[in-house]
Structures are given as structure tokens and as C-alpha cells.
């Protein structure tokens, strides 16, 4: 993919993420979605760039809660998202898990758990398996975390392990300034999170996460270095979460000055202007993309809404794949 096509692809994934998430927000507020809705508003440039730089079928991608744009860029169909959020039994999680916990581990996209930092070592293990199988060359594994997750033991253990094994792992930290409501100064004491990269012995990059061109350049370079054998890379993207933690949260704790400073700008508006300024896309094309994506989203929602929800009578209610002949689970009647 040449530079122009890559940028157009990144932008389309950003748009797809934003339009889909706007729809999810409406569905949530209309009471059509049970459970939480977590948006990546403001993080699309970072997420979509990473997803576009990865190759589905070769690479691994463990998204986190604000990676709708990256998921779609990596190749996750919209219907996987709408089915999971709307509880369709045909979705990848079949109603057993919801919203952003969905995944396709058989397609290189593990299903996240809520415990932050936990996916770092999982992606390291996927890469480690490929090394043992002799098929690691040319592969990259990536995962996204937030500023809050850098405080976890799991992040530290996972990145340190990947560094020891010198695995082609890219960890993208979206520093959106707030972990739920907790600001950076209650989360870490170093001047910049990227300083941690040096301590782990991994490559470190900083990027303005609101600037698509910068993201493409910097995240692209980090992925390239990992793919070429340079070991783990850590990218810290500075930006601002343009929503609450979830749609249940109005984010009123974000001070007004943070909203109006440079990092409070909307990466989609910035990216649109960048495409126009560099003549990578015309305004007409962008409008057409918006219309096309809105139509795709509408169809994915409509299809998932028509599908059956899980039936407790059809569930086998077992958490093991093995069937032990002598094991007799305690029988419990189903009341529904």
C-alpha cells in the first residue's frame, strides 16, 4: 500500500469507528444495549493507524476498550461488534460476554479481559509460540493500553518478559490523561511515560495522538522496527479522551482548559484537513465515505437486532471443553 492509500485507509477506519460508536451511544441511551458502552472518541488516529499497520492473518492484535477504529482497520467485521453489543447469539461471544470483550483468537485477535495490562503477556506468548514453531519471522504482535494500565504489575511483568525474549511486540499507550476519572498526576510520577521504555530496554516513541500524519509516521516506524527484529517497541501517544470513561459517565471532571488545549482537538477533524491539504482525498470523497459507512453501520445494527438472543435452555452450562463421563454437575432448574 502506498502512502496515499495507507492514509486514506487509516482515515476510513477512523470514520468507521466514530460513526459506529456514535450509533452505539445512541442505542445505549435508548436502552437497547445492556451493559457498558466504552468509546474511543479522540483516540481513532492512534488506534486506526496501528490496526492498518498490522496484517491480519500474519500479525496479532489485542485491542483494548477504545480500539473500535483499530479493530475495524485490522479486519474485524462491523457485525461482530453489533452482534456482541446487542447480545446476538450469532456473535463471536454468543451472549456469554459483551461489548468490548469480544475477540477472534483464532484470527489473531484475542478477547480482552477487564484486568488492565493482562493482554501484554498474552500477545508475547502468541509470538513466543510462533518462535517455537519456527514461523516468527516477519510477524508483529501489538496491544493497546491506556495511561492507567501502565501502573499495573501485569504491564510491567509483560513488557519485561517481552524484552527479555526480544519479541516483536508493539505496545501502544494512549495517554488520554484520565484513567476513568484519575488524572495523570495521580497515576505516575515520571515526566513522560516514554521514559519507561528505556528502563525496560525496549524502543520508545512519543507521538501527538491527535495528528494522523504523525501517528502514521511514528507508529508505522515502531511496527517496522519490531517486524525487522528490533525487539519490543513502546509508543506513547498524547491525546485527550473526548468522552466519559463510558457512556454512563459525563466526564465532568475533565477541566475546561484540557478540552481547549492542543490535545483536546478532534483527531478526525485534524485528519480530514490533512487529507484535503495534501490532496490525498477530496471533500466529496469524504462525504461519500461517511454516507457509505453510515449505511454499513445501519445494516450491521439492523441485522444484529433481528437475530436471536441466547436461550438459557439451549446453553450447555459448562466451562470446560472436556466432558468427563463421571462428572455430574449439580443440576439447577432454569427460571426465566
Amino acid at each position: 500500500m502506498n502512502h496515499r492509500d495507507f492514509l486514506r485507509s487509516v482515515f476510513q477506519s477512523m470514520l468507521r469507528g466514530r460513526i459506529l460508536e456514535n450509533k452505539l451511544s445512541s442505542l445505549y441511551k435508548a436502552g437497547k444495549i445492556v451493559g457498558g458502552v466504552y468509546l474511543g472518541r479522540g483516540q481513532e488516529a492512534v488506534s486506526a493507524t496501528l490496526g492498518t499497520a498490522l496484517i491480519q492473518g500474519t500479525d496479532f492484535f489485542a485491542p483494548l476498550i477504545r480500539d473500535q477504529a483499530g479493530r475495524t482497520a485490522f479486519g474485524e467485521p462491523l457485525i461482530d461488534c453489533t452482534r456482541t453489543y446487542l447480545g446476538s447469539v450469532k456473535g463471536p461471544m454468543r451472549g456469554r460476554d459483551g461489548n468490548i470483550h469480544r475477540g477472534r483468537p483464532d484470527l489473531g485477535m484475542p478477547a480482552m479481559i477487564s484486568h488492565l495490562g493482562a493482554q501484554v503477556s498474552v500477545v508475547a506468548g502468541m509470538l513466543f509460540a510462533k518462535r517455537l514453531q519456527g514461523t516468527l519471522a516477519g510477524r508483529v504482535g501489538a496491544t493497546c493500553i491506556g495511561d492507567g494500565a501502565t501502573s499495573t504489575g501485569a504491564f510491567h511483568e509483560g513488557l519485561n518478559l517481552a524484552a527479555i525474549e526480544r519479541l516483536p511486540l508493539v505496545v501502544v499507550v494512549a495517554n488520554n490523561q484520565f484513567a476513568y476519572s484519575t488524572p495523570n498526576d495521580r497515576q505516575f510520577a515520571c515526566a513522560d511515560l516514554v521514559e519507561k521504555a528505556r528502563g525496560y530496554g525496549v524502543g520508545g516513541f512519543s507521538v501527538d495522538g491527535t495528528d494522523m500524519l504523525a501517528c502514521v509516521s511514528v507508529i508505522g516506524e515502531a511496527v517496522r522496527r519490531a517486524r525487522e527484529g528490533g525487539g519490543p517497541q513502546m509508543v506513547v501517544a498524547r491525546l485527550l479522551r473526548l468522552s466519559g470513561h463510558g457512556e454512563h459517565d459525563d466526564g465532568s471532571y475533565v477541566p475546561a482548559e484540557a478540552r481547549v488545549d492542543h490535545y483536546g482537538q478532534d483527531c478526525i477533524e485534524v485528519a480530514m484537513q490533512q487529507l484535503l491539504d495534501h490532496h490525498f482525498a477530496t471533500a466529496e470523497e469524504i462525504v461519500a465515505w461517511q454516507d457509505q459507512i453510515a449505511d454499513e453501520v445501519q445494516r450491521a445494527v439492523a441485522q444484529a437486532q433481528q437475530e436471536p438472543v441466547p436461550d438459557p435452555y439451549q446453553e450447555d452450562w459448562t466451562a470446560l471443553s472436556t466432558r468427563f463421563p463421571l462428572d455430574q454437575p449439580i443440576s439447577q432448574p432454569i427460571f426465566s
Partner: protein
Amino acid sequence: MSVTYIDAIREAQEKLLREDDRVFLYGQDIATFGGAFKATKGLAEKFPNRVFDAPISEDAMIGMAVGAAIEGMRPIIEMQFADFSSVAFNQIVNQAATHFYRTGMPIPLTVRLPSGGTPGSGPFHSQSMEGIYAQYPGLVVLTPATVSDAYHMLLDGVALDDPVIYCEHKFLYRWLKAKSINGDHLPIGQARITRPGKHATVVAYSAMVHEAVRAADRLVQDGWEIEVVDLRSVKPLDIDTILASVARTGRLLAVGEAFPWGGVTAEVVARVTEEGFHLLDAPPQRLNARDTPVPYHPKLWAAHRPTPESICEALRKLLSF
């Protein structure tokens, strides 16, 4: 020529490495050093690039194993002590154990937990974690008590597609010997009648099977014939064999080395009471470790865990009803 319990664990791992390319070993000090208990002695030399030293990162060790299992491997993770698996608890119960239910893809990894008390080991090198892990859906929890079971259940556990918590008892490592590793090779999920009897049933597992047999031997002089059931796996739990034994004896004592609140012995008593109340001639009894951290001093430690003496006393009480 005799084989110890830890020989059996080492032999099983060697056989798995030899016969299954998907198996690799990962744990602290297990490569050149051969492990804190020498359960992997010589394996790194025999199988280069299949046995790896891990950093002191129990969480990442299991996360890594989950990732490797997703990509088709069968990792065996050695926790240096079962106690330290508390650091990996999140990856075990939330990542590995939920994965099949959530995604439909099973996670075939095995976590070896050197478990249970030995004199002088103290609060952080003596714990029995089987009840904690059995509580969570999505895990198979194995507690071998014999040399043959240590060998065959490790082979059979690694062959399962699901995550396996393999609790190996440190006290049995070198103390327990057998003429060979061959045995009856019962399937996982089936308990064994270790010693037949007719007056009371002791349900035990891991090292407590041997303490229960000693207690049963002592009660022979008083005319009591005690049946000892070795659970072998605490999850799945072979309730049929337990109920059949209680049907013969009418009396139940469940013995475990873990802490007393809840756990395996409570589950056994609850299941028997629920499903076999009519079989009971006396209130079912439990005997566990005491409700304190495992003490360091051998005199305190010996009074903390069930012993042949305390099992005899519990049995006499059970038989007095």
C-alpha cells in the same frame, strides 16, 4: 530400584517433551538449574529450546502461556511454590479459565503447583491452593497422591484441551517411593478406593491420603475397618465413588490440608449431605488445617495440619454417634 514421586513428575515431563512438539516448559530456575526441587533436572540439556527460565513474573508467565496455547502450544508452567501462584491468580482464573466459555477456544495449559506443607517452610512456602482454583469454573484441578498418579495424571492432564492445575505435594517428592511408575491408570475424574473398609469412609487427597491410611491402620487394633477414598482429582469430583463408599459405611470424614473455611472438604460434605443424606448414620465430619497462616516451627506446623493422631480422634468421634 525405586521411583520417587518427583522422579515420576520429571519422567512425565521428559516423555511429554519427547513425544509432543507442542509441549514446552516455562518456570523460574527450571532450565540449567533444573528447578528448585529438580523436577526438570537435565531436561534443558536433552531438549534445547524447549525448557526456559522465566523472570520472577508469575502473572506474565501464565499470560504468556495463555497466548502460546492460543497459538497451538501446550505449555507446562512450573510455579516455584503453589503460594506464588497468588500473583498469577488473575491470569489463571480470569484469562485461562474463562477463555473456552467466552470464545469457544480451549486453553490447554498445565500449571504445576508445588503444594502443601513441609517442616520449617512457614506461611509462604506451604500453602494448598486446590480449593481456591476448584471454586472457579473452567479449571481442572488434580491432586495426585501416588507415584503412579503423579506420572499418569500429569500425562493425562497435559493431554486435556482445558487448563489444568496440577497440585503436586512437596512432602511426597522424595519421601514417597514406588517400585515402578506403572499403576492402575484410572482416568481423570475417577476416585480410587485406596483401602477398603466398612465402618467409616475417609475422603482425602494428595498427602492426606497417606495420613488417612496411617490413621486407619491404627484403628484396626480397636476393631474398626476404615475405608479411605483418594479423590485424585478434586475437580471434577467423583461423587459417585464417594456416595457408594458412604452407602457401605454410613459415615463420612473429609480430610484436607487446606484452610478450613470452605474448600474441598466442605464441598464433599455438602454434596454427600445433599445427595446422600439418607445414607448417613452420623453427622458428616471435616478435618482441615487450622484457620491461621501455616506456622514455621515444626512443632506448630505438626499441630496445624491433620495428622494420623487428629484423624484417629476425628474418626473415633464419628464412630461414637
